């Protein structure tokens, strides 16, 4: 069957089998592998994308059901060359380690801040309670979202670096702590 939807502002149309899940459509048909896929059972939340602005578990939505809707994935967070404050917050506050849960966490955070620009820590924890992070213990994720809340886009506070600077591996600045670790290892 033919499905059409908007993904990160672009209109896409593809011929797919009705049984294709939205997560596989996004990753395999559209090639947007920033959306991760984990438990398959609507429990882990790594597959979260925004559908009409609301977080949904894309392993439990058919691509056919998303047709006609507006989908936003992690690739659509940065805009106009700037990182979303949520992305910037995850950098500032070390909101990730392995990064497996991160795209889902950031999209839920974006949806939360759109609805409630000043959530407290409990509200942030509730919002991400359907998503599992096996690395951070959540504390740094909560701080990252709080950072984003304190630095909404366009306020000019702590200007976020241009998206291409960060996303294009060649220009990625190596954080100080990383050089320190490398140095220690070399010396040892």
């Amino acid at each position, binding site marked *: 069957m033919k499905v059409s939807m908007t993904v990160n502002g672009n209109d896409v149309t593809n011929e797919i089998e009705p049984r294709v899940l939205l997560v596989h459509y996004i990753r395999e048909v559209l090639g947007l592998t920033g959306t991760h896929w984990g438990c*398959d*059972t609507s429990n882990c*939340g790594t597959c979260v994308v925004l559908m009409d602005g*609301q*977080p949904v578990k894309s392993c439990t*939505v*058919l691509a056919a059901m998303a047709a006609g809707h507006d989908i936003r994935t992690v690739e659509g967070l940065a805009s106009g060359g700037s990182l979303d404050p949520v992305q910037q917050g995850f950098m500032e506050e070390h909101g990730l380690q392995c990064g497996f849960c991160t795209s889902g966490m950031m999209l839920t955070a974006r949806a939360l801040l759109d609805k409630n620009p000043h959530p407290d820590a409990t509200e942030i924890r509730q919002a991400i*309670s*359907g998503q599992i992070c096996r690395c951070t213990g959540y504390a740094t994720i909560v701080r990252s979202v709080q950072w984003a809340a304190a630095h909404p886009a366009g306020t000019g506070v702590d200007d976020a670096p241009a998206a291409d600077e960060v996303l294009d591996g060649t220009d990625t600045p190596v954080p100080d702590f990383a050089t320190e670790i490398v140095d220690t290892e070399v010396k040892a």
Partner: protein
Amino acid sequence: MQIPAPFDYVRASSVDNALELLQRHGTESRVIAGGHSLLPMMKLRLARPEWLIDINDLYELDFILRDGDTLRIGAMTRHTTLLESDEIAGIFPIVRDAESVIADPIVRNRGTIGGSLCQADPAEDLSTVCDVLGAEAVIRGPAGERILTMADFHRGPYETAVGQDELLCELRFPLRPRSSSAYEKVERRVGDWAVGAAGAAITLAADGTISDAAVGLTALGLDGTLAEAADVLRGRHPAEELFVEAGRLAAAACDPVDDQRGPVDYKRHLADELTRRVLRLACTRAAKTQEG
């Protein structure tokens, strides 16, 4: 990778159209609402429909409406909408109590009240909520509309009175003055199905005695509401010894199964303790509506 077996997909554009599609595609067709019970079952091949009829475009079934002395909730109303509705929380606080512990916020963005009731999992929290609130189910089919009490709606685990060619369209809840309600659930971890849960609805008479009461249990092996508990409570002033007696009756009447969520004696203990708690809370809340 868990992927459903192949099927054909069609979107219904209205209730009439959905009914027409169910008839046209016959016994192997099934409607999909939020899909958060059906798709997991299809991935596991516990369900294998040949046709999926998507009813997510039926916005006409997504409503919360006060209509005289009835509150009407459309079958496509999502868990999130129910949780966030201040109007419902004011009339039936049990709904917010239950919704805040149904799955997680993201699942709640998709799952619907109609899907929950039609799924009829013994651990479905909204089934108990509808039972104790005395809801009626409005069902439409080729022969027209029929309205069933919850006792007639439920047929057992994963089974309801909704026929293959029918659609659950709305739930109707009677509004009663001096009434309130409460729900409490014990879960192993946030977002999980209940180990056990209890719900209660209480109506007070003008003199402060209990004029009507309903107690229901989730995942503890009790069908419908517990008539014995209601008998004990009716005509009496709310008091701790009544709640204790109702809890004892609930523990005796339920029939929980031993599974990975806990042994039978623990679940009976939950039936007892949770029944007391929800009755206490529902009575306190009902008394407040009387003051106001």
